[in-house]
């Protein structure tokens, strides 16, 4: 059975980067697909990748991660202003991040408007 864990941003908001990564990776290694409200900082994402690489073994080959944060690539003036306002008001709690074990999420296709992924039941 494929299971999702919705993680509200407030559950990680007060945590240090290390604790955030531990929480997310802990869930992912239990084969949960984590749907995080908002997103991590870019530097936190690379720290998550670093930590993931330290954990790779025969049973855990890594993660798939995808962020939906629409205004990121919009280049028009109105979109840029809208994006800045959203960042100002909501910070990193805007958007969604999908993270799952590479054993469960087999493929992710991402564009600025949507995320499509193909999961496999490992249970």
């Amino acid at each position, binding site marked *: 059975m494929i299971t999702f864990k919705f993680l509200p941003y407030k559950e990680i908001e007060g945590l240090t980067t290390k604790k955030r990564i531990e929480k997310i990776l802990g869930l992912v290694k239990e084969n949960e697909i984590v749907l995080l409200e908002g997103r991590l900082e870019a530097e936190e994402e690379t720290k998550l990748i670093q930590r993931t*690489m330290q954990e*790779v073994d025969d049973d855990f*080959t*890594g993660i798939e991660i995808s962020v939906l944060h629409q205004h990121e*690539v919009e280049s028009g003036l109105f979109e840029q202003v809208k994006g800045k306002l959203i960042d100002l008001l909501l910070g990193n709690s805007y958007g969604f991040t999908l993270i799952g074990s590479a054993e469960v999420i087999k493929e992710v296709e991402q564009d600025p408007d949507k995320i499509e992924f193909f999961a496999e039941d490992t249970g």
Partner: protein
Amino acid sequence: MFETVKSFFSSLFPSLFSDQDSVRIGLYGPPNGGKTTLANRISEDWMDEEMGSVSEIAHETREVKVKEEVTIEKDGKSLSFNLVDTPGIATKIDYEEFVEQGMEEDDARSRAKEATKGVIESIKWLDSVDVVIIVLDAAVDPYTQVNISTVGNLEARDIPALLVANKIDLEEADVEQVRSAFPQYDVVPISAKEGDNIETFYQALVDMV
């Protein structure tokens, strides 16, 4: 011998070996984008020697390699730098994929283990480069979270970057797709393997640094 020992320790502790006078230009991107092919192209064009081996199987480069004192001259301008070729950044590494591509299981396991260390090392080196050349395979969807995250890191650290859409010699190459994924960059289309548009790339590099 000294150079080998220095290279080994500098790959482990880049900040200890920082040379304030040398600009460090890092080649970054996902596996199999053509970073080492571009490193070889630069090294052969300006130093008459190769920098590393290339392969169709991903993660051929599994440790950071530095070529010191490369000098490019273009239209009266000259640029001297240390070129840093990094292993591709990935979120997953499965030895079974190497086996499927024809490797023996033991070699595949060993390659996977080294590749995970390579990714960690690449990310560590972000603290030690002054300029980055992002190398993307123009024939592959560029809009991946690893690429977005790499670009986000460069922006957060104020590291100037040049984005190259490599492998334009391939029929499937789609430079516009790269441009639309990262509109904040001027994209330079090249084929590092064939040398297509390489002079434009050198000009862009000299102009940027």
